[in-house]
């Protein structure tokens, strides 16, 4: 029976080739546009560290003066050197790290490679175990190296490929800002998206190539990059950021259960109160403690243009679907005579309905397959764009499934209504009209 219906459907579709092509194309364009934008949205709003991001928290406290103060104002998004050190040394979480970013001049030993600026992360030791960073060779540094301001460095696998041809480079030396550093670890594949721990270098920016202990970096006055917010007369003299009233560091802490989160929030509150009482904090205590997901939501990392494009494509899909429903309806209604004959000859309403639905389903499926191709083309086009997230735009298996689901649902929706209308005709009336 199904084969017979399929045969009927193909005959029906073949009768108006142009119209069939038009309907397939409309569905395909709608689905193609939707899946392109939704894939980008999906990639950009993904969980950077699945399984870990729920227990990683980003504390905020407010050390600013009363200038422009209003109650309920959001605390600064980064911490000062003093507060960062205090939180770090308090060790209230199972892991914690104080960090910031920068650019470091790197002079390769090979004369064939010109000196270049490497993207750097200055951080304390817990960065690696806390974020679950995989290592290809060697390992991270420990707190002892932090404290002794050791000249050690961890490099990315990309940099290892570039400088050492991908071989184990642990123990070798690289020159950063005219100082020799010993490589103690080479990272494996590690690119959490978005770049959640420091959104100030671009949320989907290129990843760091060198990781240097924070105190070592400050000792050598390596350049700090990213956002620096100052108040009062605290000019952001890059050499003396430690003493200035500026926030420029990110502090992350791992808290494994709800009780420790509550305790940590209370700890932040107490610290603020103490500082307020001591006169260092002028504003009333004002703290926030967000985990990775909450932080990314708050910062609205997904570019608003991307969200706008997603809405736009939804609108486009709606128009395409209405278009297809209208055309399909007109087409089915025109075949009222034929349907009337079949009804009169004993075909049940359900059988007609099934047959028409199959016909629209074929259109939807064809549209879906074409739409998938169009969205692959769309993603390719997006990858040619210069924005920093462009190269992330790839379809994964989840979005592939979603595309098929969408096309089937869309075509069923588009076919359901016309099929239902068409099979409600009274056979006698149709036959009489002939």
């Amino acid at each position: 029976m199904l084969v017979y219906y399929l045969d009927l459907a193909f005959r029906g579709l073949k009768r108006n080739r142009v119209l069939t092509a038009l309907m397939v194309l409309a569905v395909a364009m709608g689905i193609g546009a939707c899946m392109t934008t939704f894939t980008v949205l999906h990639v950009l709003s993904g969980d950077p560290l699945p399984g870990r991001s729920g227990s990683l928290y980003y504390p905020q406290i407010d050390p600013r003066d009363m200038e422009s103060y209003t109650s309920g104002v959001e605390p600064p998004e980064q911490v000062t050197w003093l507060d960062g050190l205090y939180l770090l040394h308090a060790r209230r979480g199972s892991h914690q790290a104080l960090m910031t970013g920068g650019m470091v001049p790197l002079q390769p030993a090979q004369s064939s490679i010109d000196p270049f600026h490497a993207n750097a992360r200055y951080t304390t030791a817990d960065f690696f175990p806390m974020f679950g960073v995989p290592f290809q060779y060697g390992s991270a540094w420990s707190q002892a190296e932090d404290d002794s301001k050791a000249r050690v460095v961890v490099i990315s696998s990309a940099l290892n490929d570039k400088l050492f041809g991908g071989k184990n480079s642990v123990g070798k030396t690289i020159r950063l800002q005219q100082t020799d550093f010993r490589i103690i670890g080479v990272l494996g594949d590690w690119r959490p998206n978005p770049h959640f721990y420091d959104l100030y270098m671009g949320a989907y920016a290129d990843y760091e190539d060198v990781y240097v202990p924070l105190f070592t970096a400050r000792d050598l006055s390596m350049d700090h990059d990213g956002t620096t917010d100052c108040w009062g007369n605290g000019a952001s003299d890059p050499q003396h950021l430690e003493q200035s009233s500026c926030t420029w560091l990110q502090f992350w802490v791992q808290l494994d259960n709800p009780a420790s989160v509550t305790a940590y929030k209370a700890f932040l509150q107490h610290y603020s109160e103490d500082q307020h009482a001591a006169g260092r904090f002028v504003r009333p205590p004002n703290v926030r403690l967000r985990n990775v997901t909450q932080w990314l939501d708050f910062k609205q990392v997904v570019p608003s243009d991307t969200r706008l494009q997603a809405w736009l494509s939804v609108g486009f899909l709606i128009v395409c679907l209405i278009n297809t429903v209208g055309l399909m309806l007109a087409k089915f209604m025109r075949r009222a005579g034929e349907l009337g004959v079949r009804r009169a000859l004993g075909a049940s309403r359900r059988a007609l309905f099934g047959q028409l639905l199959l016909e629209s389903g074929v259109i939807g499926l064809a549209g879906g397959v074409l739409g998938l191709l169009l969205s692959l083309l769309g993603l390719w086009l997006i990858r040619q764009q210069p924005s920093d997230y462009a190269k992330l735009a790839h379809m994964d298996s989840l979005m592939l499934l979603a595309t098929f689901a969408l096309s089937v649902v869309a075509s069923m929706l588009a076919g359901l209504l016309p099929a239902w209308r068409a099979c409600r005709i009274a056979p006698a009336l149709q036959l009489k009209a002939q």
Partner: protein
Amino acid sequence: MDIRPILVTLRRHKFTCCLLVLQIAFTCAIVCNAIFLIGQRLERMRTPSGIAENELVYIQMADIGNRPDAKARAAEDLAALQAIPGVKSAALVDELPFDMGSDNMDVRTDPNQRMATLSASQYFGEGLTKTLGVKLIEGRDFRPEEFVDLSDVYTALAQQQYEKLPKTTLITRDMAERLWPGQDPLGKQIYVGTGLPFTVIGVLQNLIRPGQDRLELGAQYSSVWPVRIPLVQGASFLIRCAPQDREQVLKSAVDKLKALDPNRIVLGKGTMEQHRRDFFQNDRAMAGILFGVCLALLVVTALGIVGLASFWVAQRNRSIGVRRALGATRGNILHYFQTENFLLTTMGIVLGMVLAYGINLFLIVHYELPRMPAMYLPIGALILWGIGQVAVLGPALRAAAVPPVVATRSV
């Protein structure tokens, strides 16, 4: 033409008509808003910079390692750049117009004011106004003796010796108008940080502020300070020359800077025109996408109208024949279908206007966009009327060509 028979006929295809009206309404609503958004982007891309854009090249550099002689190095570099044939002027500046990031400060007109009046970008660098080619419309430029070294500024701030800070500043016309509406800004004081006073000695016509996210906060809120800088982080050499010399000058400047001190890295270089293009690349891409979607929507809708109209023509073949046999002219039949389409499109447009307004409200709430001016609605209406008439013309002509003899044929 009497529209009653058309309405009566349409009532017999209620469902299909509703779908067409709905499609036109959605298209109209999306197209109106998209055109409005495109207009916004184009306006942003046309922001005047106030600088001699086609005469400027820049080189962003960084030292490898710390330099104790940074001040002397910078002076020597600038002298060497000035000596290149074709160079009109050169400066070392802390930030460039059309940089993605920016340095900003809060500005007050009264030291006790709690909320700052505005936030403005701060340009440092000796010879910056002359090199950028900004137009001074009031007052004077800095005198050479007014310049203070950046390192001395840091020291003065750290030791609270505020008398060693520069005393003067240049601001833009827009900024002056926001600070003191309708008044002469010359000689007035602005307050920065914890109420440090600076005197406005000149007003610039325009000077765009850097920072991708800052243009909405006042594209021309820029101030220029008599601060001399060495090659600090983020600083760039800015060179002005004749438009046709830019390539050559840029090349010799890079060579010369590398020759003077090989121990540094070129982080970026190019012409200011390219820098402007890069700055607005997202806006250009978005405008392009919106335009593409508009076009695709209109094509889909037009094809939908063609399809439906063709069906109706075919379906009514016999009644058209009857009408022709009873004396209707070809013109009557043509007009019938055109009027029918006009009526449906008008219904769609009316519904579309309401939807367009709704979408605009949504955008205002979620994307902080301004309210769409009413003029975009008639534009959308005209486009859809036009598309509708063009789309229906083919089927309508086919209908008009139906010979009266059809009426006598049985199916």
